[in-house]
């Protein structure tokens, strides 16, 4: 304590102003009306208005679908990248990370333009394509990391005990790579629930995600209602992180 803890002060101030205070403000606005009186009406609106609850369900649905698509594409890619007999160059891994260096908004607008040029109508299909394109690296990377660090003798031991290559994958490689999959899911699922720009650009606002609804509320200066919906989303994200994080710890601990 004493001198050393003083070093933490700037970070403490940062946290107070940019994390704690905004959270308090969101909670305050969510639970008050325009006059600043306490009310649960804003929260209740979430359950009363079909438009809002529908967009929430659609958001969860799209996020789940996007996560599944990312796993389906990302896992095999990560597996191939991590296998030195299949992938002999470090450059290939880089190629999959490369798109992350370009602003997601720009990539999304470009994607929309390509669809436009190809004469493909914007809708759910194009939305999922754009989301998978944006979030795929976040799925590949954690899985790739865990697979490339995995001790090869586990797979050899399974083979030695009579497991065919398919069985080796199902019984050993896949379960041991689950921590990577869980990190990937958290990095893909959570941001997709709250996204709004991608859906706006890639569906021409025909599909309204929960994030778009919140954004709309703030645009229309309905701060209290917007804050209430944000709070709902925060709780959802918090719960998912808590569950995922706990499981992650268990598995991480098990690997050491």
């Amino acid at each position, binding site marked *: 304590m004493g001198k050393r803890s003083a070093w933490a002060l700037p970070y403490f101030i940062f946290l107070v102003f940019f994390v704690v205070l905004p959270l308090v403000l969101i909670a305050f606005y969510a639970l008050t009306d325009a006059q600043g009186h306490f009310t649960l009406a804003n929260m209740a609106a979430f359950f009363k208005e079909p438009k809002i609850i529908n967009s929430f369900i659609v958001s969860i649905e799209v996020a789940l679908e996007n996560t599944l698509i990312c796993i389906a594409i990302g896992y095999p890619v990560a597996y191939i990248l991590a296998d030195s007999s299949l992938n002999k160059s470090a450059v290939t891994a880089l190629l999959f990370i490369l798109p992350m260096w370009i602003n997601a908004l720009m990539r999304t607008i470009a994607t929309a333009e390509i669809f436009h040029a190809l004469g493909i109508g914007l809708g759910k299909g194009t939305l999922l394509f754009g989301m998978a394109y944006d979030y795929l690296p976040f799925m590949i990377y954690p899985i790739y990391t865990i697979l490339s660090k995995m001790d090869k003798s586990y797979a050899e031991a399974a083979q*030695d005990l009579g*497991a065919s290559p398919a069985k080796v994958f199902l*019984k050993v490689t896949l379960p041991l790579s689950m921590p990577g999959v869980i990190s990937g899911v958290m990095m893909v699922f959570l941001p997709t629930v709250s996204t709004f720009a991608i859906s706006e650009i890639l569906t021409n606002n025909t599909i309204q995600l929960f994030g778009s609804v919140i954004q709309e509320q703030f645009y229309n200066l309905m701060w209290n209602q917007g804050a209430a919906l944000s709070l709902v989303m925060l709780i959802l994200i918090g719960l998912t992180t808590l569950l995922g994080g706990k499981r992650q710890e268990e598995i991480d601990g098990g690997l050491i």
Partner: protein
Amino acid sequence: MSDKKIIINLEHVSKSFGDKVVLDDVNLYIKEGEFITFLGPSGCGKTTLLRLIAGFLAPDSGVITLDGKDISELPPHKRPLNTVFQRYALFPHLDVYDNVAFGLKLRKLPSDEIDRKVARVLKLVSMTDYEDRDVNSLSGGQQQRIAIARAIVNEPRVLLLDEPLSALDLKMRKDMQIELKEMHKKLGITFIYVTHDQEEAVTLSDTIVVLNEGRIQQIGTPVDIYNEPQNEFVADFIGESNILNGTMLRDRRVSFIGHEFDCVDEGFGENVPVDVVVRPEDIYIMNNTEAAQFTAKVKSCTFKGVHYEMFVETDNGCELMIQDYNAFEVGSTVGLYIKPVDIQVMHKQCTCNVFEGEMNGPDSVWMLGADFDCPDTGLQKGDKVRVEVDFDKVELLDNEGTAEGNVSFILYKGDHYHLTVKTKEGEDVLVDTNDVWDKNDMVGISIKPEDLRISKL
């Protein structure tokens, strides 16, 4: 043992990784039920040999048979062998029971049979009641037992063990050695064991295969290998030894360290240069110099627990290592005696360096990846030649010599060092020197022109 049938046979097996030859024409048979150990320093190819048998690698050339059937191309999961891995490789996501039952479940045995087999094998490795434990909560020794249980529960024809005790502390290692030996007796299956620890190999094995640089140096029982090493490498690697230059005068008579001795070896011919091995515990040391064959001065005396280890300098200036239960005073003169049966005489692998080269001109020869000056030979440029150089005529330099190499093997021969220097092209240059070099030292190789004996091929 000799009436047992052969279970595994390797014929002309070679394996390279890139340019590096790891195994070079290995021929070996393994008998049913024997405890065989592959012994050698790191990088000698012993683990590669084990992995070829397990099926994790395929040989570049040669054939591996099991019960007479070629298994060279058979994937590991179809071979009736199981491996105990160096760092155990227990599955961290499974508990002890599921680790041990892994192979049985893959074979889809009924669950009560799996229960029975797992219980039996856990009893064998003294790990009953650990079924539900997380494998990460076990100590190194316990993990080792589970790794063995997981392998033998499948009742393999052959159990492969890849340095299984190397991660354990000394006391634990000794205990596990005894247990492994008992387990081998109880199970009656073939054990193939890999280690770099010569003491472990001698303790455990029925047969030892000594490997160095991808080649088999000697195959034999521990007693054979200890008492009758076939070359300098084996003599140096197994146990402590005095390795000396000598001359076989005639049958049963050998001279070394400036004295003549009776020995039991025959058939070498007359006045043939040989290597002589005398184990330090086989030299009798006494205060009485009258009855001795030769005398020496004690240079150092160290207590080693059971015995004293002494270095003495003989009357002819040769250093010997002696182990005895009694200590002798440093500086005192002692008498030494060696019994004929304790003198092991070995053929010298070569008596001088022989290189192949090509003339650059009448007074320059290309060999060992460099140009060497030589006296005028009258030979033409491009002539292929054979060059002979005596061991003590090769000079090693700190800075650059004519050619370059790395010291790959060092042998102390009582009054000088006998070094093997490997050049970049992989040729061995043997050197006798009084200078002290360390293994892997980079050295320059220089040879005086008049010391090259060149003859046209």
